[in-house]
Protein backbone atom coordinates (compact mmCIF):
# COMPACT_ATOMS: atom_id res chain seq x y z
CA UNK A 1 0.00 0.00 0.00
CA UNK A 2 1.06 3.53 -0.69
CA UNK A 3 -0.31 6.88 0.33
CA UNK A 4 -0.60 9.37 -2.49
CA UNK A 5 -0.70 12.94 -1.25
CA UNK A 6 -1.48 15.41 -4.00
CA UNK A 7 -1.42 19.15 -3.37
CA UNK A 8 -3.34 20.74 -6.22
CA UNK A 9 -5.17 23.88 -7.29
CA UNK A 10 -8.56 24.06 -5.58
CA UNK A 11 -10.38 24.53 -8.86
CA UNK A 12 -9.06 21.20 -10.14
CA UNK A 13 -10.44 19.13 -7.28
CA UNK A 14 -13.75 18.33 -8.91
CA UNK A 15 -12.16 17.09 -12.13
CA UNK A 16 -9.56 14.98 -10.36
CA UNK A 17 -12.17 13.48 -8.07
CA UNK A 18 -14.44 12.61 -10.94
CA UNK A 19 -11.72 11.02 -13.06
CA UNK A 20 -10.45 8.96 -10.14
CA UNK A 21 -14.02 7.91 -9.49
CA UNK A 22 -14.44 6.76 -13.08
CA UNK A 23 -11.28 4.72 -12.73
CA UNK A 24 -12.85 3.26 -9.59
CA UNK A 25 -11.09 5.13 -6.82
CA UNK A 26 -13.84 6.67 -4.75
CA UNK A 27 -12.26 6.70 -1.31
CA UNK A 28 -10.22 9.77 -0.51
CA UNK A 29 -9.73 12.40 2.12
CA UNK A 30 -9.59 16.07 1.17
CA UNK A 31 -8.19 18.95 3.20
CA UNK A 32 -8.05 22.65 2.51
CA UNK A 33 -4.49 23.82 3.02
CA UNK A 34 -2.40 26.80 2.08
CA UNK A 35 0.95 26.59 0.46
CA UNK A 36 3.84 28.61 -0.80
CA UNK A 37 6.51 27.93 -3.32
CA UNK A 38 7.41 29.51 -6.61
CA UNK A 39 3.97 30.94 -7.18
CA UNK A 40 3.49 34.70 -6.75
CA UNK A 41 1.22 35.90 -3.97
CA UNK A 42 -1.75 38.20 -4.32
CA UNK A 43 -2.08 41.78 -3.22
CA UNK A 44 -4.88 43.30 -1.16
CA UNK A 45 -5.45 46.88 -0.08
CA UNK A 46 -7.24 48.06 3.06
CA UNK A 47 -7.45 51.80 3.68
CA UNK A 48 -4.14 52.41 2.03
CA UNK A 49 -2.26 49.46 3.54
CA UNK A 50 -1.04 47.08 0.89
CA UNK A 51 -0.73 43.43 1.91
CA UNK A 52 0.82 40.60 0.00
CA UNK A 53 -0.50 37.19 0.82
CA UNK A 54 2.02 34.51 -0.07
CA UNK A 55 0.27 31.49 1.38
CA UNK A 56 -2.14 30.53 -1.33
CA UNK A 57 -5.12 28.23 -1.05
CA UNK A 58 -4.51 24.68 -2.21
CA UNK A 59 -6.30 21.39 -1.77
CA UNK A 60 -4.61 18.31 -0.42
CA UNK A 61 -5.98 14.95 -1.57
CA UNK A 62 -4.92 11.86 0.32
CA UNK A 63 -5.54 8.45 -1.16
CA UNK A 64 -4.26 5.17 0.12
CA UNK A 65 -3.98 2.73 -2.80
CA UNK A 66 -2.70 -0.82 -3.30
CA UNK A 67 0.61 -0.68 -5.10
CA UNK A 68 -0.76 -2.03 -8.35
CA UNK A 69 -3.00 1.01 -8.85
CA UNK A 70 -0.38 3.54 -7.86
CA UNK A 71 0.98 4.53 -11.25
CA UNK A 72 -2.44 4.72 -12.84
CA UNK A 73 -3.70 6.91 -10.02
CA UNK A 74 -0.70 9.21 -10.39
CA UNK A 75 -1.32 9.50 -14.11
CA UNK A 76 -4.92 10.44 -13.62
CA UNK A 77 -4.09 13.07 -11.03
CA UNK A 78 -1.37 14.63 -13.14
CA UNK A 79 -3.54 14.68 -16.24
CA UNK A 80 -6.41 16.40 -14.54
CA UNK A 81 -4.56 18.78 -12.26
CA UNK A 82 -2.01 20.11 -14.71
CA UNK A 83 -2.33 23.55 -16.25
CA UNK A 84 1.36 24.01 -17.06
CA UNK A 85 1.57 27.19 -15.01
CA UNK A 86 3.56 27.68 -11.82
CA UNK A 87 1.50 26.63 -8.81
CA UNK A 88 0.16 23.35 -10.16
CA UNK A 89 1.41 21.62 -7.04
CA UNK A 90 3.14 18.41 -6.08
CA UNK A 91 2.43 14.77 -5.45
CA UNK A 92 4.24 12.95 -2.66
CA UNK A 93 4.22 9.18 -2.21
CA UNK A 94 4.62 7.62 1.22
CA UNK A 95 4.83 4.05 2.47
CA UNK A 96 1.87 2.78 4.48
CA UNK A 97 2.20 0.01 7.00
CA UNK A 98 -1.35 -0.99 7.48
CA UNK A 99 -4.95 0.10 7.03
CA UNK A 100 -8.09 -0.67 9.01
CA UNK A 101 -11.72 -0.17 8.07
CA UNK A 102 -13.30 0.88 11.35
CA UNK A 103 -16.77 -0.37 10.45
CA UNK A 104 -15.70 -3.96 9.80
CA UNK A 105 -12.29 -4.04 11.47
CA UNK A 106 -10.89 -5.48 8.22
CA UNK A 107 -7.18 -4.91 7.84
CA UNK A 108 -4.76 -4.44 4.97
CA UNK A 109 -5.76 -4.02 1.35
CA UNK A 110 -9.31 -5.13 2.04
CA UNK A 111 -9.78 -2.08 4.14
CA UNK A 112 -9.20 0.54 1.49
Amino acid at each position, binding site marked *: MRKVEAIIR*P*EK*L*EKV*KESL*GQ*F*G*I*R*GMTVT*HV*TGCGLQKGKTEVYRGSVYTIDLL*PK*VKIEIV*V*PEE*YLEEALKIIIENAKTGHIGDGKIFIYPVEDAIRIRTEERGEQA*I
Partner: protein
Amino acid sequence: MRFFVAAVLWWVWWSSLSGTAWAAETQNINTGDTAFLLVASALVMLMTPGLALFYGGMVRRKNVLNTIMQSFIVMALISVQWILIGYSLAFGPDVGNIIGNLSWAGFHQVGLAPNPDYAPSIPHQVFAAFQLMFAIITPALISGAIAERMRFPAYLLFVLLWATFVYDPLAHWVWGVNGWLRNLGALDFAGGTVVHISAGVAGLVAALVLGQRKGYGKLPMPPHNLPMTVMETALLWFGWFGFNAGSALAASELASNAFITTNTAAGAAVLGWMFTEWILHGKPTVLGAASGAIAGLVAITPAAGYVTPLSSIIIGVIAGILCCLAVSVLKKRMGYDDALDAFGCHGIGGTWGSLATGLFASQAVNPAGNNGLFYGNPSLLMTQFIAVLAAWSFVAAVTFVILKVVGLLTPLRASAEEEEVGLDLSQHGEDAYPDMPVAALQVDNGNEGQVAAEILVGKSMP
Protein backbone atom coordinates in the same frame (compact mmCIF):
# COMPACT_ATOMS: atom_id res chain seq x y z
CA MET B 1 -61.02 26.39 -12.14
CA ARG B 2 -64.63 27.50 -12.11
CA PHE B 3 -64.58 26.91 -8.40
CA PHE B 4 -61.44 29.00 -8.12
CA VAL B 5 -62.99 31.99 -9.90
CA ALA B 6 -66.09 31.68 -7.79
CA ALA B 7 -64.00 31.62 -4.64
CA VAL B 8 -62.11 34.74 -5.66
CA LEU B 9 -65.32 36.56 -6.48
CA TRP B 10 -66.84 35.62 -3.14
CA TRP B 11 -63.65 36.78 -1.46
CA VAL B 12 -63.80 40.10 -3.26
CA TRP B 13 -67.43 40.53 -2.35
CA TRP B 14 -66.67 39.74 1.28
CA SER B 15 -63.83 42.17 1.35
CA SER B 16 -65.89 44.87 -0.35
CA LEU B 17 -68.30 44.83 2.56
CA SER B 18 -65.69 46.36 4.77
CA GLY B 19 -64.39 48.51 1.92
CA THR B 20 -67.57 50.48 1.56
CA ALA B 21 -67.89 50.79 5.28
CA TRP B 22 -64.68 52.64 5.81
CA ALA B 23 -64.73 55.03 2.92
CA ALA B 24 -67.74 56.74 4.40
CA GLU B 25 -66.51 57.35 7.89
CA THR B 26 -63.07 58.81 7.09
CA GLN B 27 -62.46 61.76 9.38
CA ASN B 28 -60.52 63.48 12.10
CA ILE B 29 -57.23 61.73 12.29
CA ASN B 30 -54.16 63.49 13.63
CA THR B 31 -51.31 63.30 11.12
CA GLY B 32 -48.59 63.48 13.76
CA ASP B 33 -50.08 60.64 15.76
CA THR B 34 -50.71 58.62 12.62
CA ALA B 35 -47.17 59.16 11.37
CA PHE B 36 -45.85 58.08 14.74
CA LEU B 37 -47.96 54.96 14.96
CA LEU B 38 -47.20 53.91 11.38
CA VAL B 39 -43.51 54.19 12.10
CA ALA B 40 -43.90 52.52 15.48
CA SER B 41 -45.65 49.61 13.79
CA ALA B 42 -42.77 49.28 11.37
CA LEU B 43 -40.32 49.36 14.27
CA VAL B 44 -42.16 46.63 16.14
CA MET B 45 -42.36 44.58 12.95
CA LEU B 46 -38.58 44.80 12.71
CA MET B 47 -38.24 43.25 16.15
CA THR B 48 -39.30 39.81 14.94
CA PRO B 49 -36.51 39.39 12.37
CA GLY B 50 -34.27 40.99 14.96
CA LEU B 51 -35.30 38.24 17.33
CA ALA B 52 -34.76 35.67 14.58
CA LEU B 53 -31.11 36.58 14.29
CA PHE B 54 -30.69 37.29 17.99
CA TYR B 55 -31.69 33.68 18.57
CA GLY B 56 -29.95 32.53 15.39
CA GLY B 57 -26.60 33.79 16.63
CA MET B 58 -26.95 31.81 19.84
CA VAL B 59 -27.57 28.38 18.38
CA ARG B 60 -25.06 26.06 16.84
CA ARG B 61 -24.19 26.47 13.20
CA LYS B 62 -26.21 23.50 12.10
CA ASN B 63 -29.48 24.89 13.44
CA VAL B 64 -29.24 28.55 12.59
CA LEU B 65 -31.60 28.59 9.62
CA ASN B 66 -34.27 26.62 11.43
CA THR B 67 -34.05 28.97 14.38
CA ILE B 68 -34.37 31.99 12.12
CA MET B 69 -37.25 30.39 10.29
CA GLN B 70 -39.11 29.80 13.53
CA SER B 71 -39.40 33.55 13.93
CA PHE B 72 -39.66 34.47 10.28
CA ILE B 73 -42.52 32.14 9.51
CA VAL B 74 -44.57 33.63 12.33
CA MET B 75 -44.49 36.93 10.45
CA ALA B 76 -46.19 35.21 7.54
CA LEU B 77 -48.64 33.08 9.48
CA ILE B 78 -49.90 35.71 11.88
CA SER B 79 -49.99 38.49 9.26
CA VAL B 80 -52.69 36.45 7.56
CA GLN B 81 -54.35 34.99 10.69
CA TRP B 82 -54.72 38.47 12.21
CA ILE B 83 -56.66 39.79 9.24
CA LEU B 84 -58.87 36.72 9.05
CA ILE B 85 -59.72 36.17 12.72
CA GLY B 86 -56.99 37.15 15.18
CA TYR B 87 -57.73 40.84 15.49
CA SER B 88 -61.42 40.20 15.90
CA LEU B 89 -60.84 37.64 18.65
CA ALA B 90 -58.53 39.94 20.55
CA PHE B 91 -60.11 43.36 20.12
CA GLY B 92 -63.55 42.69 18.64
CA PRO B 93 -66.81 43.16 20.54
CA ASP B 94 -66.56 41.42 23.88
CA VAL B 95 -68.01 38.02 24.71
CA GLY B 96 -68.20 37.34 28.44
CA ASN B 97 -65.11 39.47 29.30
CA ILE B 98 -63.04 36.63 27.88
CA ILE B 99 -62.70 37.03 24.15
CA GLY B 100 -63.81 39.09 21.16
CA ASN B 101 -66.44 37.78 18.78
CA LEU B 102 -65.92 37.26 15.07
CA SER B 103 -67.77 40.27 13.77
CA TRP B 104 -64.51 41.97 12.80
CA ALA B 105 -63.19 38.89 10.98
CA GLY B 106 -61.64 39.73 7.62
CA PHE B 107 -61.19 43.28 8.92
CA HIS B 108 -64.90 44.03 8.62
CA GLN B 109 -65.62 47.21 10.54
CA VAL B 110 -61.87 47.73 10.77
CA GLY B 111 -61.75 50.75 8.57
CA LEU B 112 -59.83 53.93 8.10
CA ALA B 113 -61.76 56.05 10.59
CA PRO B 114 -60.51 56.01 14.17
CA ASN B 115 -61.98 53.66 16.73
CA PRO B 116 -62.40 55.93 19.73
CA ASP B 117 -62.39 53.02 22.17
CA TYR B 118 -58.80 52.22 21.35
CA ALA B 119 -57.12 55.16 19.67
CA PRO B 120 -59.15 58.21 18.87
CA SER B 121 -56.66 60.07 16.69
CA ILE B 122 -55.42 57.44 14.22
CA PRO B 123 -57.14 55.24 11.63
CA HIS B 124 -58.55 52.08 13.14
CA GLN B 125 -56.42 50.04 10.70
CA VAL B 126 -53.28 51.62 12.06
CA PHE B 127 -54.20 50.50 15.56
CA ALA B 128 -54.89 47.03 14.20
CA ALA B 129 -51.57 46.98 12.33
CA PHE B 130 -49.70 48.10 15.44
CA GLN B 131 -51.32 45.37 17.50
CA LEU B 132 -50.57 42.83 14.77
CA MET B 133 -46.87 43.30 15.32
CA PHE B 134 -47.29 42.34 18.99
CA ALA B 135 -49.27 39.28 17.97
CA ILE B 136 -46.37 38.28 15.71
CA ILE B 137 -43.48 38.65 18.08
CA THR B 138 -45.08 36.86 21.03
CA PRO B 139 -45.21 33.35 19.56
CA ALA B 140 -41.81 33.94 17.98
CA LEU B 141 -40.35 34.57 21.43
CA ILE B 142 -41.35 31.06 22.50
CA SER B 143 -39.09 29.52 19.88
CA GLY B 144 -36.07 30.40 22.00
CA ALA B 145 -37.10 27.81 24.57
CA ILE B 146 -37.47 24.93 22.16
CA ALA B 147 -34.64 25.77 19.78
CA GLU B 148 -32.57 23.07 18.11
CA ARG B 149 -35.01 20.18 18.50
CA MET B 150 -38.62 20.78 17.35
CA ARG B 151 -39.88 19.50 14.02
CA PHE B 152 -40.92 22.29 11.69
CA PRO B 153 -44.41 21.02 10.74
CA ALA B 154 -45.28 20.61 14.42
CA TYR B 155 -43.98 24.09 15.10
CA LEU B 156 -46.17 25.58 12.38
CA LEU B 157 -49.25 23.98 13.81
CA PHE B 158 -48.34 24.88 17.38
CA VAL B 159 -47.81 28.54 16.57
CA LEU B 160 -51.11 28.87 14.76
CA LEU B 161 -53.05 27.27 17.59
CA TRP B 162 -51.17 29.12 20.31
CA ALA B 163 -51.76 32.51 18.71
CA THR B 164 -55.45 31.75 18.41
CA PHE B 165 -56.09 30.10 21.76
CA VAL B 166 -53.58 31.77 24.04
CA TYR B 167 -52.47 35.12 22.68
CA ASP B 168 -55.75 36.39 21.30
CA PRO B 169 -57.79 35.71 24.47
CA LEU B 170 -55.07 37.01 26.78
CA ALA B 171 -54.77 40.22 24.78
CA HIS B 172 -58.50 40.57 25.10
CA TRP B 173 -58.41 40.12 28.88
CA VAL B 174 -55.82 42.85 29.36
CA TRP B 175 -56.42 45.35 26.55
CA GLY B 176 -59.80 44.54 24.97
CA VAL B 177 -62.81 46.66 25.85
CA ASN B 178 -64.46 44.82 28.76
CA GLY B 179 -61.62 42.32 29.13
CA TRP B 180 -61.75 41.13 32.72
CA LEU B 181 -58.22 42.08 33.73
CA ARG B 182 -58.66 45.50 32.18
CA ASN B 183 -61.86 45.92 34.14
CA LEU B 184 -60.04 44.82 37.27
CA GLY B 185 -57.60 47.72 36.85
CA ALA B 186 -54.47 45.70 36.10
CA LEU B 187 -51.87 47.86 34.39
CA ASP B 188 -49.88 46.57 31.44
CA PHE B 189 -48.57 49.44 29.42
CA ALA B 190 -47.05 47.60 26.49
CA GLY B 191 -47.32 43.90 27.11
CA GLY B 192 -45.57 42.67 30.24
CA THR B 193 -48.23 40.02 30.81
CA VAL B 194 -49.67 39.73 27.32
CA VAL B 195 -46.36 39.40 25.55
CA HIS B 196 -43.54 38.53 27.89
CA ILE B 197 -45.10 36.46 30.65
CA SER B 198 -47.16 34.58 28.13
CA ALA B 199 -44.21 33.81 25.84
CA GLY B 200 -41.89 33.01 28.72
CA VAL B 201 -44.26 30.67 30.49
CA ALA B 202 -45.27 28.99 27.25
CA GLY B 203 -41.58 28.52 26.54
CA LEU B 204 -41.00 26.88 29.88
CA VAL B 205 -43.90 24.48 29.36
CA ALA B 206 -42.76 23.67 25.81
CA ALA B 207 -39.18 23.09 26.95
CA LEU B 208 -40.44 20.65 29.57
CA VAL B 209 -42.75 18.83 27.19
CA LEU B 210 -40.10 18.52 24.46
CA GLY B 211 -37.30 17.56 26.81
CA GLN B 212 -33.63 18.41 26.71
CA ARG B 213 -31.51 18.58 23.60
CA LYS B 214 -29.30 15.54 22.99
CA GLY B 215 -26.15 15.96 25.02
CA TYR B 216 -27.48 18.90 27.03
CA GLY B 217 -25.28 19.48 30.05
CA LYS B 218 -22.64 17.13 28.73
CA LEU B 219 -21.59 18.76 25.50
CA PRO B 220 -20.96 22.48 25.25
CA MET B 221 -23.42 24.25 22.97
CA PRO B 222 -21.92 27.67 22.56
CA PRO B 223 -23.41 30.39 20.32
CA HIS B 224 -22.10 30.26 16.78
CA ASN B 225 -22.09 33.97 16.02
CA LEU B 226 -22.07 36.42 18.90
CA PRO B 227 -21.59 39.63 16.89
CA MET B 228 -24.86 38.82 15.17
CA THR B 229 -26.56 38.34 18.53
CA VAL B 230 -25.29 41.65 19.88
CA MET B 231 -26.31 43.53 16.76
CA GLU B 232 -29.80 42.13 16.91
CA THR B 233 -30.03 42.97 20.59
CA ALA B 234 -29.53 46.54 19.52
CA LEU B 235 -32.13 46.19 16.81
CA LEU B 236 -34.55 44.89 19.41
CA TRP B 237 -33.71 47.86 21.63
CA PHE B 238 -34.38 50.14 18.66
CA GLY B 239 -37.67 48.43 17.84
CA TRP B 240 -38.67 48.56 21.49
CA PHE B 241 -39.04 52.32 21.20
CA GLY B 242 -41.89 51.59 18.83
CA PHE B 243 -43.17 48.90 21.16
CA ASN B 244 -43.27 50.99 24.31
CA ALA B 245 -43.48 54.61 23.17
CA GLY B 246 -45.89 53.54 20.43
CA SER B 247 -48.13 52.03 23.11
CA ALA B 248 -49.03 55.59 24.08
CA LEU B 249 -50.94 55.44 20.77
CA ALA B 250 -50.06 59.07 20.06
CA ALA B 251 -46.98 61.25 19.62
CA SER B 252 -47.67 62.60 23.07
CA GLU B 253 -46.03 63.42 26.38
CA LEU B 254 -46.84 59.88 27.44
CA ALA B 255 -44.89 58.52 24.48
CA SER B 256 -42.02 60.72 25.52
CA ASN B 257 -42.05 59.31 29.05
CA ALA B 258 -42.23 55.74 27.77
CA PHE B 259 -39.35 56.43 25.41
CA ILE B 260 -37.00 57.66 28.08
CA THR B 261 -37.91 55.04 30.68
CA THR B 262 -37.44 52.30 28.10
CA ASN B 263 -33.98 53.44 27.20
CA THR B 264 -32.95 54.03 30.78
CA ALA B 265 -34.12 50.65 32.03
CA ALA B 266 -32.28 48.92 29.20
CA GLY B 267 -29.06 50.72 30.04
CA ALA B 268 -29.41 50.07 33.76
CA ALA B 269 -30.12 46.39 33.23
CA VAL B 270 -27.01 45.98 31.08
CA LEU B 271 -25.01 47.25 34.03
CA GLY B 272 -26.95 45.05 36.46
CA TRP B 273 -26.34 41.86 34.47
CA MET B 274 -22.76 42.69 33.59
CA PHE B 275 -21.65 43.38 37.14
CA THR B 276 -23.52 40.34 38.48
CA GLU B 277 -21.72 38.16 35.98
CA TRP B 278 -18.42 39.90 36.62
CA ILE B 279 -18.78 38.91 40.28
CA LEU B 280 -20.04 35.38 39.57
CA HIS B 281 -17.62 34.40 36.82
CA GLY B 282 -14.81 36.89 37.05
CA LYS B 283 -15.37 38.49 33.67
CA PRO B 284 -17.90 40.88 32.15
CA THR B 285 -19.17 39.05 29.08
CA VAL B 286 -20.55 40.63 25.97
CA LEU B 287 -23.38 38.12 25.72
CA GLY B 288 -24.23 39.01 29.30
CA ALA B 289 -24.40 42.69 28.48
CA ALA B 290 -26.66 41.98 25.53
CA SER B 291 -28.86 39.70 27.61
CA GLY B 292 -29.09 42.42 30.23
CA ALA B 293 -30.47 44.87 27.69
CA ILE B 294 -33.23 42.41 26.81
CA ALA B 295 -34.00 41.81 30.48
CA GLY B 296 -34.33 45.53 31.14
CA LEU B 297 -36.48 46.11 28.10
CA VAL B 298 -38.77 43.27 29.09
CA ALA B 299 -39.12 44.50 32.65
CA ILE B 300 -39.91 48.09 31.70
CA THR B 301 -42.51 47.05 29.14
CA PRO B 302 -45.54 46.93 31.47
CA ALA B 303 -44.30 49.97 33.40
CA ALA B 304 -42.98 52.32 30.71
CA GLY B 305 -45.87 54.77 30.73
CA TYR B 306 -46.46 54.73 34.47
CA VAL B 307 -43.09 55.31 36.13
CA THR B 308 -40.46 58.06 36.29
CA PRO B 309 -37.04 57.85 34.64
CA LEU B 310 -35.40 57.45 38.03
CA SER B 311 -37.67 54.54 38.91
CA SER B 312 -36.79 52.96 35.60
CA ILE B 313 -33.15 52.82 36.69
CA ILE B 314 -34.10 50.67 39.69
CA ILE B 315 -36.46 48.50 37.67
CA GLY B 316 -33.71 47.96 35.11
CA VAL B 317 -30.87 47.15 37.49
CA ILE B 318 -32.97 44.62 39.37
CA ALA B 319 -34.17 43.07 36.12
CA GLY B 320 -30.56 42.60 35.03
CA ILE B 321 -29.60 40.93 38.30
CA LEU B 322 -32.68 38.71 38.53
CA CYS B 323 -32.54 37.43 34.97
CA CYS B 324 -28.81 36.79 35.20
CA LEU B 325 -29.38 34.65 38.27
CA ALA B 326 -32.33 32.94 36.59
CA VAL B 327 -30.34 31.78 33.59
CA SER B 328 -27.08 30.95 35.31
CA VAL B 329 -28.29 29.54 38.61
CA LEU B 330 -32.00 28.69 38.56
CA LYS B 331 -31.94 27.01 35.15
CA LYS B 332 -29.01 24.82 36.09
CA ARG B 333 -30.65 23.81 39.38
CA MET B 334 -33.97 22.94 37.81
CA GLY B 335 -32.56 21.13 34.80
CA TYR B 336 -35.05 22.25 32.16
CA ASP B 337 -33.47 23.03 28.80
CA ASP B 338 -34.72 26.52 28.00
CA ALA B 339 -32.21 26.66 25.17
CA LEU B 340 -32.01 30.41 24.57
CA ASP B 341 -33.60 31.53 27.83
CA ALA B 342 -37.02 32.57 26.62
CA PHE B 343 -38.32 31.85 30.10
CA GLY B 344 -35.26 33.18 31.89
CA CYS B 345 -35.47 36.56 30.20
CA HIS B 346 -39.11 37.03 29.27
CA GLY B 347 -40.88 34.96 31.90
CA ILE B 348 -38.83 36.21 34.82
CA GLY B 349 -38.32 39.73 33.45
CA GLY B 350 -41.98 40.12 32.55
CA THR B 351 -43.11 38.94 35.96
CA TRP B 352 -40.76 41.31 37.72
CA GLY B 353 -41.86 44.19 35.50
CA SER B 354 -45.53 43.56 36.11
CA LEU B 355 -45.02 43.49 39.85
CA ALA B 356 -42.68 46.48 39.70
CA THR B 357 -45.49 48.41 38.04
CA GLY B 358 -47.43 47.77 41.23
CA LEU B 359 -44.55 49.26 43.19
CA PHE B 360 -43.43 52.25 41.15
CA ALA B 361 -46.48 53.42 39.17
CA SER B 362 -47.33 57.06 39.77
CA GLN B 363 -50.33 59.11 38.73
CA ALA B 364 -48.06 62.12 38.54
CA VAL B 365 -46.59 60.49 35.46
CA ASN B 366 -49.79 59.20 33.98
CA PRO B 367 -53.09 60.33 35.47
CA ALA B 368 -54.86 57.54 33.57
CA GLY B 369 -52.74 55.02 35.49
CA ASN B 370 -52.64 54.47 39.21
CA ASN B 371 -50.31 54.84 42.18
CA GLY B 372 -48.15 51.92 43.23
CA LEU B 373 -47.03 50.77 46.65
CA PHE B 374 -44.24 53.32 46.92
CA TYR B 375 -46.71 56.07 46.13
CA GLY B 376 -48.94 54.96 48.94
CA ASN B 377 -51.34 52.54 47.24
CA PRO B 378 -50.80 48.85 48.10
CA SER B 379 -53.91 47.67 46.26
CA LEU B 380 -52.36 48.05 42.81
CA LEU B 381 -49.65 45.57 43.71
CA MET B 382 -52.36 43.06 44.62
CA THR B 383 -54.12 43.63 41.32
CA GLN B 384 -50.87 43.17 39.44
CA PHE B 385 -50.25 39.98 41.36
CA ILE B 386 -53.64 38.61 40.36
CA ALA B 387 -52.99 39.49 36.73
CA VAL B 388 -49.63 37.76 36.80
CA LEU B 389 -51.10 34.68 38.41
CA ALA B 390 -53.96 34.54 35.96
CA ALA B 391 -51.60 34.86 33.00
CA TRP B 392 -49.21 32.19 34.33
CA SER B 393 -51.98 29.64 34.97
CA PHE B 394 -53.94 30.25 31.80
CA VAL B 395 -50.89 30.19 29.56
CA ALA B 396 -49.33 27.15 31.18
CA ALA B 397 -52.51 25.11 31.00
CA VAL B 398 -53.54 25.93 27.46
CA THR B 399 -50.01 25.68 26.07
CA PHE B 400 -49.72 22.21 27.55
CA VAL B 401 -52.99 21.11 25.98
CA ILE B 402 -52.05 22.54 22.59
CA LEU B 403 -48.72 20.74 22.59
CA LYS B 404 -50.39 17.46 23.45
CA VAL B 405 -52.93 17.93 20.67
CA VAL B 406 -50.26 18.80 18.13
CA GLY B 407 -48.26 15.81 19.30
CA LEU B 408 -51.16 13.56 18.43
CA LEU B 409 -51.22 14.88 14.88
CA THR B 410 -47.50 14.89 14.11
CA PRO B 411 -44.36 14.18 16.15
CA LEU B 412 -43.21 17.25 18.05
CA ARG B 413 -39.60 16.35 18.33
CA ALA B 414 -36.96 15.80 15.69
CA SER B 415 -35.48 12.29 15.67
CA ALA B 416 -32.05 11.73 17.15
CA GLU B 417 -30.47 11.60 13.69
CA GLU B 418 -32.26 14.75 12.55
CA GLU B 419 -31.01 16.52 15.63
CA GLU B 420 -27.50 15.18 15.12
CA VAL B 421 -27.23 16.28 11.51
CA GLY B 422 -28.87 19.59 12.39
CA LEU B 423 -32.33 20.97 11.80
CA ASP B 424 -31.21 23.11 8.87
CA LEU B 425 -30.47 20.11 6.75
CA SER B 426 -33.11 17.80 8.16
CA GLN B 427 -36.05 20.22 8.22
CA HIS B 428 -35.20 22.53 5.34
CA GLY B 429 -32.60 20.79 3.19
CA GLU B 430 -30.31 23.79 3.48
CA ASP B 431 -26.99 24.77 4.95
CA ALA B 432 -26.56 28.28 6.35
CA TYR B 433 -23.04 28.83 5.06
CA PRO B 434 -22.60 26.21 2.34
CA ASP B 435 -19.85 28.07 0.60
CA MET B 436 -17.88 28.74 3.74
CA PRO B 437 -15.59 25.83 4.48
CA VAL B 438 -14.61 25.77 0.85
CA ALA B 439 -14.74 29.35 -0.22
CA ALA B 440 -13.00 30.30 2.97
CA LEU B 441 -10.13 29.15 0.91
CA GLN B 442 -11.46 30.64 -2.30
CA VAL B 443 -12.18 27.38 -3.92
CA ASP B 444 -14.75 27.50 -6.61
CA ASN B 445 -17.64 26.14 -4.67
CA GLY B 446 -18.53 23.77 -7.39
CA ASN B 447 -15.85 21.48 -6.23
CA GLU B 448 -17.72 19.98 -3.38
CA GLY B 449 -20.80 18.92 -5.20
CA GLN B 450 -22.47 17.72 -8.28
CA VAL B 451 -25.68 19.19 -9.49
CA ALA B 452 -28.63 16.92 -9.06
CA ALA B 453 -26.65 13.73 -9.08
CA GLU B 454 -26.78 11.21 -6.31
CA ILE B 455 -23.60 9.37 -5.53
CA LEU B 456 -23.31 5.87 -6.83
CA VAL B 457 -22.96 3.84 -3.71
CA GLY B 458 -21.06 0.61 -3.52
CA LYS B 459 -18.57 1.16 -6.33
CA SER B 460 -15.16 1.10 -4.73
CA MET B 461 -11.64 0.27 -5.73
CA PRO B 462 -11.58 -1.65 -9.09
